[in-house]
């Protein structure tokens, strides 16, 4: 327990100290909230769909957690490239502990960022439909953060360099965000796009948050929660498998 706690503390400390990472990671979601929330919001209302900012906020919180989780993987990559991983891997501690302790730290960072975006969106005029559903939404956020952090850890364990990681960001993370239910309703979109969005687990994360925060849902909360749970298990297995294969 002591080991896991200290590995967790290491991640959180590093995050807290790097002011640029703290601010930088919030820049993009704020930009999206402003540009899309206010920019597209006007058209959205005219189309008779209601308040776009309300629709958008769960999507942006999910995107924040997605990006933060994947980019946290860079720390594993740094540890791998710049040697600290060797120190952890020759210690008399199982790799599972090293991975879980670190990933819990990564997830904590994602959760903090998700909450900050939630607070910022309140400033921008977002109001949850029912405040009593905010705590359950927080629990969903925790599970999502864990799943996506594991996903990032798995990817970082697989690739060997930062360029490769950048490629994965472009080929995987951006499509996972744009081809989900984060930015637009899935009701009247072309079939191909609909199929992709339905396969994409990110859609279900957005949908669960949207249900709890704004009482709108596409898939239904039960289905959302099941898919999120399955995603967590799959991502965890992926991370453990890839991390165990790292050779120094």
């Amino acid at each position: 327990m002591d080991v896991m706690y200290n590995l967790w503390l290491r991640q959180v400390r590093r995050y807290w100290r790097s002011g640029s990472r703290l601010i930088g990671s919030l820049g993009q979601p704020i930009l999206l909230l402003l540009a899309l929330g206010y920019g597209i919001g006007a058209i959205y209302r005219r189309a008779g769909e209601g308040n776009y900012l309300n629709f958008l906020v769960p999507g942006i919180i999910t995107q924040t957690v997605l990006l933060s989780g994947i980019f946290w993987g860079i720390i594993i990559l740094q540890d791998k490239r710049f040697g600290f991983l060797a120190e952890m891997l020759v210690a008399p501690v199982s790799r599972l502990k090293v991975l879980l302790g670190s990933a819990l730290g990564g997830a904590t960072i994602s959760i903090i960022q998700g909450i900050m975006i939630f607070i910022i969106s309140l400033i921008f005029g977002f109001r949850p439909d029912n405040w009593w559903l905010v705590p359950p939404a927080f629990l969903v956020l925790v599970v999502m953060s864990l799943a996506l952090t594991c996903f990032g850890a798995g990817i970082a364990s697989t690739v060997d360099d930062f360029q490769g990681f950048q490629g994965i960001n472009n080929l995987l993370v951006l499509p996972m965000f744009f081809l989900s239910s984060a930015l637009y309703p899935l009701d009247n979109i072309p079939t191909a796009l609909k199929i992709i969005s339905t396969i994409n687990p990110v859609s279900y994360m957005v949908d669960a948050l949207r249900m709890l925060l704004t009482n709108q849902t596409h898939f239904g909360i039960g289905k959302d929660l099941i898919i999120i749970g399955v995603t967590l298990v799959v991502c965890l297995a992926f991370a453990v498998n890839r991390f165990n294969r790292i050779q120094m």
Partner: protein
Amino acid sequence: MPQTVISAKSVSKRFGEVIAVDDISFDVKKGEIFAFLGPNGAGKSTTIKMLTTMLRPTTGELRLAGHDVTRERDAARKAFGIVFQDPSLDEELSAYENMDLHATLYGIPKTHRPKRIQELLELVDLWSRKDSMVKTFSGGMRRRLEIARGLLHEPKVLFLDEPTLGLDTQTRNLMWSYVKKLSDEKGMTIFFTTHYLDEAEDVAEQIAIIDHGKIITRGTVADLTKETGTKTLEDAYLKLTGTMTRDDSEAGNNDGLNFRMARRNRTLR
């Protein structure tokens, strides 16, 4: 007779078709300063990685302080400290935090930690900088911190993989005098690799030279110079391993990761 602390019996390591380490056997006695020398790609780092549980040998048996390195991995891990060839500190943490994390990883009781960390940081003259981030440290300070960290859990064996690479002469001398003291006073076994043969000549009590994955000779400096009819260790070494440089096309490279990459590159070509 002093007890054997490290023993290798017919150890080999293959990466696909490449044989990095080819049936080597040797042992190191308690308190001995043992130098493991050889050209790049000879199998030095692969051997150290096997001894320190980072790679599994393909065949053969390795024992460290009485523990089978493959089967009793955690016991073996507690018995050694290592200073890696590449820096391995967390630069975003302070010197003290790096030490504290290491103490946690090795299960040193919380009550012992502060005293032990202070002792070691004072020993390597870093106590006054304990709260500075490692990223502000010079190369020599980092090396000293890594040595202090490697000693924190009171290992029986200390591995030093090219520990003086890139250090100035003052730091090198200081480091070696300290290492000698550890070996003399605490009976700690030191296993090191280096490319500076004058260093090995000064410090090492026993030397093994490895080339093309095989140990080609073993003995004291006097044994080696006598065997080759030369005056210095460097001459003896060059006579034994030749004066040609090694490159990727011949033996791959000097560690497991590089081996894998070299193979991948070859298939890409």
